């Protein structure tokens, strides 16, 4: 019951802040609202017993993506007026409506079968076991680390002044 109330509060604030992100002219305020939207999404993950996803949402989306966004705002000039509207308004609207139609129709027509297994509480440690134990996914984890390394080095190589 309390979880339901929490879910509806978080969901309502998430939707309102997501609308605010696209309607506000001030880019910085839009970024702050995006952070609020990410945070409420993390809260919704918590109401679904997905504590790992919630922690990732806070760590990656708020910690990295939102910070990068604010960095990008700092790096630009003359953004007080926000994004000026341009000629792509009509195509963007068409694409948005089509995407919304696809998402709504697939959400309505999909059966949403419920899993017979009960969700485990706080299963982050199990994820750790799967990722790092000897008969788990150690090699993919290390490859993911290599990908991170390649991304960091690539970004530095591409952007460094000669």
């Amino acid at each position, binding site marked *: 019951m309390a979880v339901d109330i929490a879910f509806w509060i978080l969901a309502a604030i998430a939707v309102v802040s997501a609308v605010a992100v696209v309607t506000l002219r001030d880019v910085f305020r839009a970024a702050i609202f995006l952070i609020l939207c990410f945070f409420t999404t993390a809260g919704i993950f918590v109401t679904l017993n997905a504590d790992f996803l919630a922690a990732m949402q806070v760590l990656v989306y708020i910690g990295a993506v939102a910070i990068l966004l604010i960095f990008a705002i*700092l790096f630009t000039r003359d953004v007080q007026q926000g994004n000026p509207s341009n000629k792509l308004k009509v195509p963007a609207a068409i694409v948005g409506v089509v995407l919304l139609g696809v998402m709504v129709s697939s959400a309505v027509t999909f059966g949403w079968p419920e899993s017979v297994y009960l969700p485990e509480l706080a299963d982050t440690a199990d994820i750790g076991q799967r990722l790092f134990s000897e008969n788990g996914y150690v090699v993919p984890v290390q490859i993911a680390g290599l990908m991170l390394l390649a991304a*960091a080095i690539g970004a530095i190589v591409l*952007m460094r002044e000669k």
Partner: protein
Amino acid sequence: MLNSFGLLGMFLIIAILVTAAFVLIPIALRLVGLGARRNPNTDKYTIYECGMVSVGKTHIQFNFRYYFFAVLFVAFDVLAIFLFPWALWMGNAGVFELGAAVLLVVIVLIGYLYAWKKGVMQWK
């Protein structure tokens, strides 16, 4: 559904409280402003207590060098994704798991060392 008031309950409380802070603080500040008497003069608009009077626009383009710090930060942030479940499970982990995590950190640290070597963290 949330039958144990453990870690998840704590997370939920934090989520609700931070969301409430985000939403309520601007409203509270606006309400405080409503009752205030406005009697401005030049001294009131000077910079509070200390600091220089700013010259020109305050919204300037920041130096692009901060980008490298952002990139390195993101790399280590994604590394934290992998270390978080590992750390929660660490209690019953053995030498192999410790070695796997150390190897992962070392791999990502190579990028940091590369950035250090190339001097992207120096302010030239």
